[in-house]
């Protein structure tokens, strides 16, 4: 019997098979294999192997002269014909290549963005085994990703499958100073040394194990080192945190990649928290404020670990609380796109946007491909002779299919080169649109290069397949017999044009709906004033302690109408707690949103009081605890009349009398319903924002005045101000982005479709030149001829409308569901989207039709 492993080298066999004549392939490989085995038995495996390979090498000259040479010759011919066709019909080629190039450019940009978004956190070597602990409280709207501080050590101690665990506590707007440099800094992290074992973070200087052993040590990122120290060596220097605590620089952190859901600029040990905040208790299981990550042992099952969490919580937090929390894990690589918890370190992206963008890119590509298909098949009439001759000489169908597919590949390649150029030009604009810093460095981005190849292959094959199949099916006898009057009006081509316009109409429709909804938001009466209000952050103790004095100073300026401090601004109230009141049923739990304000807040923002009164300095009893509720809160609690009632809430466990009821206003963006709300009169220490209402149009004079006033109380305070209007708009940034993206890409789609239609009509009118000439000679007017020529295209657009409307309506209705307050899609949207498509189609068609109709019939008929 033949021993195992005695097969000839597979690659050599494959090469040889390519040389053998087709009908002899099987016998010859068999013969070779037999000889190979004989040599193997008689001599050695090596000599058999050598002999086999020598067969390959000795046949190279034969292979070259008889196989490759002819292929090259044919290829050169195909290429030459393709180039000739491109050059001969410059207009059509331009339309073809430009349409494809624009489509491809859009796809390249979108792919680049999608690739970046998908790459988040994947660069950590152990990314696949890192999870974040998240929890959901029964009855709350959003899950939370912050956990108690002792959880991470407890996990390491109790669960053998947890290799290590770490905690993050991040601060933004931290006042940092070194020498004469003072800035407010973001991305200030308190963390455990385990972080450096789990994540792929690099230290340029310092040792990851020892750098954070002292509670007052700090690591700086490279960019921060440059900002504060320039060329100085930062090691061992001291920087000051919030003007009170000194931290010694013990290491430099390599700048983190942009595609991380957290980036660190300052890193200090977790042990620094109790030094900074006396009230912090490292053993407390009650404060949910720390992002907790853990590294799972290889091959361990995260689901099984999730199950073990309930006993852990019961042990440490107690049975009552743990019943209300459901713990789950978020894989590190899914956080950026799939997580939207409270306590997120940075703003996460939304997978829906990625899907939306990718589908738009795909649709645009389809439109561009259809352009190519339509023009190529329509124009194939001009090439019927070439095809006939090729067939007569002996080309079979597969040769022609190969030729036309190759041609579409060549065109796609040309389009790709153009597309990359377009993409490079528009990249900065696109970057500002998506808020990223992408670069199109194709050679360094292997994966992207691969995607591009796949893209070109797909487009070339998809766009080329239909023309290749139809053209190759021509019967040579008919083509060459000169009875080839004109290509029959192809049903498929009509359907393709309808699809193109359908996609365009859907995109136009979506654009209109998004725009309507944004206008609705912009113009909706929110229930509070938005104009001429400047907001200054209060982030400094010396300012916070002198708030009353500062307010009085500011109000002296005649251009300043009113000044008020508060914790939140009226457009975003992101804090909720439970409320208690006398006479409440025991089982009853009432969630209530909370904001701390001073006496002037309600007047400054013109919030309407419908019952009772506003907070007032004339009632000294207000300072002992006074609340304003909104109508929803009063209704939720079930009071007939609220003023005078007593209420307790659990943030600081404050009790007070209700003095009035506010008319419901949108205390959160319109995505959310109006919820029960309590405004607590607490002008004290916690307030974060100072709102300044300005009279008239004297903003330019007022801003320096505010700055000087603040500087008197805190000379180093880096003064920054924002307009409330801008803050308000920022909540709808995502929607505005979507709106811009939609309008941009629907414009692109419709222009590519228009381009294709232009080419197609110019071709059909060219085909009918003689018919038009005869009609004119017989007395047809120009308008009749234009009508005749545009009738068909109008029909297509109308059919496209009928298909597009329901699709667009359902899709956009789903999008609108994400808003609690939304528009109804009106009849006007339907009409406008149809009209836009009709006008564009009409213009392109009638231009061609007019041109054809106005030519002198003599021109058309003189050759015969």
């Amino acid at each position, binding site marked *: 019997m*033949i021993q195992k492993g005695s097969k000839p080298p597979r690659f050599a066999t494959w090469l040889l098979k390519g040389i053998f004549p087709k009908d002899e392939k*099987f*016998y010859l490989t068999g013969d*070779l*294999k037999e000889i190979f085995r004989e040599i193997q038995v008689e001599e050695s495996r090596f000599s058999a192997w050598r002999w086999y390979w020598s067969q390959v090498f000795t*046949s190279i000259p034969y292979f070259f002269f008889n196989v490759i040479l002819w292929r090259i010759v044919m290829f050169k011919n195909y290429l030459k014909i393709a180039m000739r066709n491109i050059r001969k019909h410059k207009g059509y080629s331009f339309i073809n290549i430009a349409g494809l190039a624009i489509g491809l450019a859009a796809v390249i940009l979108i792919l680049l963005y999608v690739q970046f978004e998908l790459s988040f956190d994947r660069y950590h070597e152990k990314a696949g085994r890192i999870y974040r602990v998240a929890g959901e409280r029964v009855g709350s709207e959003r899950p939370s990703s912050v956990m108690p501080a002792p959880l991470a050590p407890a996990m390491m101690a109790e669960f053998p499958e947890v290799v290590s665990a770490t905690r993050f506590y991040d601060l933004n707007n931290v006042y940092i100073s070194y020498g004469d440099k003072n800035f407010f800094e973001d991305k200030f992290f308190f963390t455990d040394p385990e972080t450096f074992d789990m994540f792929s973070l690099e230290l340029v200087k310092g040792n990851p194990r020892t750098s954070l052993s002292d509670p007052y040590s700090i690591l700086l990122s490279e960019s921060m080192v440059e900002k504060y120290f320039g060329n100085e060596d930062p090691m061992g220097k001291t920087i000051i945190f919030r003007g009170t605590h000194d931290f010694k620089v013990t290491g430099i952190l390599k700048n983190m990649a942009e595609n991380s859901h957290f980036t660190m600029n300052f890193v200090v040990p977790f042990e620094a928290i109790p030094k900074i905040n006396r009230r912090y208790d490292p053993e407390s299981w009650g404060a949910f404020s720390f992002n907790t990550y853990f590294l799972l042992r290889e091959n361990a099952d995260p689901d099984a670990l999730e199950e073990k969490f309930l006993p852990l919580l019961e042990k440490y937090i107690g049975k009552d609380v743990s019943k209300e929390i459901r713990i789950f894990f978020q894989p590190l690589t899914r956080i950026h796109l799939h997580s939207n918890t409270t306590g997120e370190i940075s703003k996460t992206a939304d997978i829906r946007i990625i899907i939306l963008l990718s589908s738009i890119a795909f649709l645009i590509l389809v439109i561009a491909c259809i352009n190519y298909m339509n023009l190529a098949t329509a124009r194939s009439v001009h090439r019927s002779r070439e095809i006939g001759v090729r067939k007569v000489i002996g080309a079979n169908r597969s040769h022609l299919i190969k030729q036309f597919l190759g041609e579409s590949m060549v065109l796609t390649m040309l389009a790709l080169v153009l597309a990359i150029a377009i993409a490079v030009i528009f990249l900065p604009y696109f970057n500002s649109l998506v808020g990223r810093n992408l670069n199109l460095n194709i050679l360094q981005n292997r994966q992207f290069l691969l995607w591009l190849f796949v893209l070109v292959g797909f487009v070339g094959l998809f766009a080329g397949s239909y023309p290749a199949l139809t053209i190759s099916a021509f019967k040579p006898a008919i083509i060459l017999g000169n009875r080839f009057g004109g290509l029959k009006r192809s049903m498929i081509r009509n359907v393709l044009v309808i699809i193109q316009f359908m996609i365009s109409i859907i995109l136009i429709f979506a654009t209109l709906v998004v725009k309507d909804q944004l206008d609705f938001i912009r113009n909706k009466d929110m229930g509070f004033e938005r104009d001429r209000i400047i907001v200054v952050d209060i982030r400094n103790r010396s300012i916070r302690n002198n708030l009353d004095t500062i307010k009085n100073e500011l109000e002296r300026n005649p251009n300043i109408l009113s000044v008020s401090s508060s914790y939140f601004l009226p457009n975003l109230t992101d804090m909720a707690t439970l409320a208690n009141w006398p006479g409440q049923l025991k089982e009853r739990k009432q969630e209530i949103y909370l904001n701390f304000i001073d006496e002037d807040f309600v007047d400054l923002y013109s919030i309407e009081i419908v019952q009772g009164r506003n907070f007032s300095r004339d009632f000294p009893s207000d300072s002992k605890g006074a609340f304003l509720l909104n109508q929803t809160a009063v209704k939720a609690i079930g009071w007939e009349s609220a003023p005078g009632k007593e209420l307790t809430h659990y943030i600081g466990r404050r009790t007070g009398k209700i003095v009035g009821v506010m008319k419901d206003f949108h205390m959160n963006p319109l995505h959310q319903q109006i919820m029960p709300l309590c405004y607590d009169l607490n002008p004290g220490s916690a307030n974060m924002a100072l709102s300044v209402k300005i009279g008239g149009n004297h903003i330019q004079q007022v801003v320096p005045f505010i700055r000087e006033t603040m500087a008197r109380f805190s000379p180093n305070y880096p003064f920054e101000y924002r307009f409330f209007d801008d803050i308000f708009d920022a909540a709808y940034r995502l929607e505005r982005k979507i709106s811009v993206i939609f309008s941009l890409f629907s414009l692109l789609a419709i222009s590519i479709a228009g381009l294709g239609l232009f080419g197609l009509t110019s071709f059909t009118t060219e085909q009918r030149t003689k018919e038009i000439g005869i009609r004119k000679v017989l007395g047809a007017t120009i308008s009749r001829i234009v009508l005749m020529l545009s009738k068909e295209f109008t029909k297509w657009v109308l059919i496209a409308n009928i298909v597009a409307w329901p699709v667009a309506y359902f899709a956009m209705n789903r999008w609108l569901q994400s808003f609690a307050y939304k528009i109804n899609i009106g009849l006007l949207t339907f009409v406008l989207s149809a009209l836009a498509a009709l006008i564009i189609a009409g213009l392109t068609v009638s231009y061609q039709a007019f041109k054809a109709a106005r030519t002198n019939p003599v021109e058309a008929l003189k050759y015969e």
Partner: protein
Amino acid sequence: MKYLTRQEELILLSIFHLKGKAYLVTIRKHLMELTGKNWSIGAVYVPLNRLHQTGYLDTTIGEPNAKRGRNSIKYYRLTKKSFEALEEIKKVSDTAWMGFSKVAYNISDCR
């Protein structure tokens, strides 16, 4: 008639001797044993193919054997035309070789 080359003649004779078991591998082996020289595959296959195309050989497809995996065998058989050609060659060469014997084979005489 067109004379066969020496190679073709030898190949035809090998096929004759192999009696229905003649295919590329056995033919090549037979030739190598006969001549004591190495025959490359091409040196066998090319004339074999030519002979087949010019009608000197018939082929039948046989079942594959264990040595060659799933690839079937192409057996060659002599046709009437090749028998005639071989006979012709034999006649011509017999005549041409007449009088040439081992006795006469002497180096000094050859000069």
